[in-house]
């Protein structure tokens, strides 16, 4: 998902304290920043919230790529508002991480020097306007599926950020589907564009849920701590079952010859994405990894003088006020 491949391991701390902590979580209590927490819980959360935040920020880029080319004034405003929301979501999440004792600047530097990751999906290019529709429909659809349960996650600031994010995101997927509908009811070229977008974004969207449960990195501890709420395969299946009928409605073809409805288990059989490709993308070799990181580095480096300047001015003013007192 927006936080893929987060491993968690059990803590080696005082078993009594750990048991009491687990009991609180099992009872549905929220953990707040100043409460005692196992160091492994803190570390896993920082990784997960940080990766989620980075994904929102890098996620601005593929869609931002089309803001200046949106086809109508209204579409332009909608897309701009949506990409702006993503900056807001990144901000809420960085603030949630900050309550765990790590600053936004530290997290940003770890993103830029490659110590931290962001979702694989944002390393794919947006080539046509239909990609903006496909991203809203598929990528936001997948994200929402993961984020809705996270509103119940055990760490208070993370849960509150997710509640705000889910509330704001409710229009994102709908605007994407709306773009797809317009194109699928449009000219021949528009339909071709829409099918082409689905062809390219289908498997990368399935990858968003992370590797199969059987191959997945250790996440039992995360599940017990209610940092991760559902298994990868569970959510992926739910996504396919929800999305295929929508593709049919659009009269688009899901690019999977093995796609088949199974009455018995009330779900689709489908082909898994290419996990070698997934790992290549996660490890920096996707089609847009270099572009995305260099865009973020540029924004950060070129923004340094602005951040420094405004802070220097604030300090001068504070000194003047103190002198006047």
């Amino acid at each position: 998902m927006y936080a893929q491949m987060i491993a968690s391991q059990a803590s080696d701390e005082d078993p009594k304290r750990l048991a009491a902590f687990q009991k609180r979580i099992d009872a549905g209590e929220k953990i707040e920043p100043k409460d005692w927490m196992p160091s492994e819980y803190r570390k896993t959360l920082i990784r997960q919230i940080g990766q989620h935040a980075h994904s929102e920020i890098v996620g601005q880029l593929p869609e931002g790529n089309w803001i200046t080319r949106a086809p109508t004034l209204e579409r332009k405003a909608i897309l701009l508002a949506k990409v702006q929301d993503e900056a807001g979501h990144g901000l809420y999440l960085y603030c949630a991480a900050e309550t765990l004792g790590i600053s936004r600047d530290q997290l940003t530097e770890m993103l830029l020097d490659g110590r931290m990751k962001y979702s694989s999906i944002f390393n794919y290019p947006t080539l046509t306007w239909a990609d903006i529709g496909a991203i809203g429909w598929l990528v936001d659809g997948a994200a929402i599926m993961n984020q809705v349960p996270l509103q119940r996650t055990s760490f208070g600031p993370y849960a509150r950020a997710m509640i705000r994010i889910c509330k704001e995101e409710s229009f994102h997927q709908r605007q994407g589907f709306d773009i797809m509908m317009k194109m699928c009811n449009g000219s021949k070229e528009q339909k071709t564009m829409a099918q082409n977008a689905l062809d390219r974004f289908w498997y990368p969207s399935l990858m968003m849920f992370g590797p199969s449960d059987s191959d997945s990195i250790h996440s039992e501890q995360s599940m017990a701590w209610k940092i991760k709420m559902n298994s990868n395969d569970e959510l992926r299946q739910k996504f396919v079952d929800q999305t295929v009928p929508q593709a049919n409605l659009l009269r688009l073809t899901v690019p999977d010859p093995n796609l088949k409805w199974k009455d018995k288990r009330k779900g689709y059989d489908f082909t898994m994405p290419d996990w070698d490709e997934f790992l290549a993308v996660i490890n920096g070799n996707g089609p847009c990894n270099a572009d995305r990181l260099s865009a973020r580095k540029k924004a950060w480096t070129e923004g340094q003088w602005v951040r420094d300047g405004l802070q220097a001015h604030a300090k001068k003013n504070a000194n003047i006020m103190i002198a006047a007192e």
Partner: protein
Amino acid sequence: MDYQSAYFEFLCRLGDNALILGHRISEWCGHGPTLEEDIALANIALDLIGEATVWLELAAGVENKRRTANDLAMLRDAWEFRNVLLVEQPNGDFGQTIMRQYLFDAWHVLVLTALAESRELPVAAAAAKIKKEAQYHLLRSRNTVIGLGDGTPESHRRMQAALDWSYPYVGELFERDEIDHTVEQKGVVNQSANLWDHYYEEISSTLQRATLQIPAAPHSHSGGKNGQQHSEHLGHILTQLQWLQRAYPGAQW
């Protein structure tokens, strides 16, 4: 010039300024120096695109040739655009962007204040709403110009460079021609005779607090507002802004 044509042009000027500046500011989305600034810039761009839609819709109505706001935005070519040169200039660094914004906002608020009293009621209503947006933009850009001008030596140097660069484009904001006279006679706008004095008062006090020097700049570029000669930058903006409408004529999006 007949009133209808003058009124149409006048509305296009308002709409095109907002459209082209909104386009420029939207280029920042995802690339701002902080997340807070990124979000704030996107809000400004959203306001401007909304404003462009309002003015161009009014213009299309006045023209009465079955064109829509989108047609005007997406299907006119460079010579038909009526925005001032200032707003089509490239973003440059953040300092140049925010200086251009400030110099525009300070003017925009004054113009909208006058327009809010327009005898054309749709113009008065639109201006009253847009004025609030512009006032906020000014509050914000003024705060940032002061902060960066009076920040570090580097931020000061960059802001002075931004001012030196932008200032020759300020004069065009105050040019008046036959179109202005025609709409003024009909009470579309009753522009105060000392618009420049009010403007200069605003910018000189802000730039002084920002520890910046207003350039002597006897020269002033023009040709955007009257459409006689835009800069080369406009053409490149249009290749993006209009790409889909030009490549797929008549398609619905």
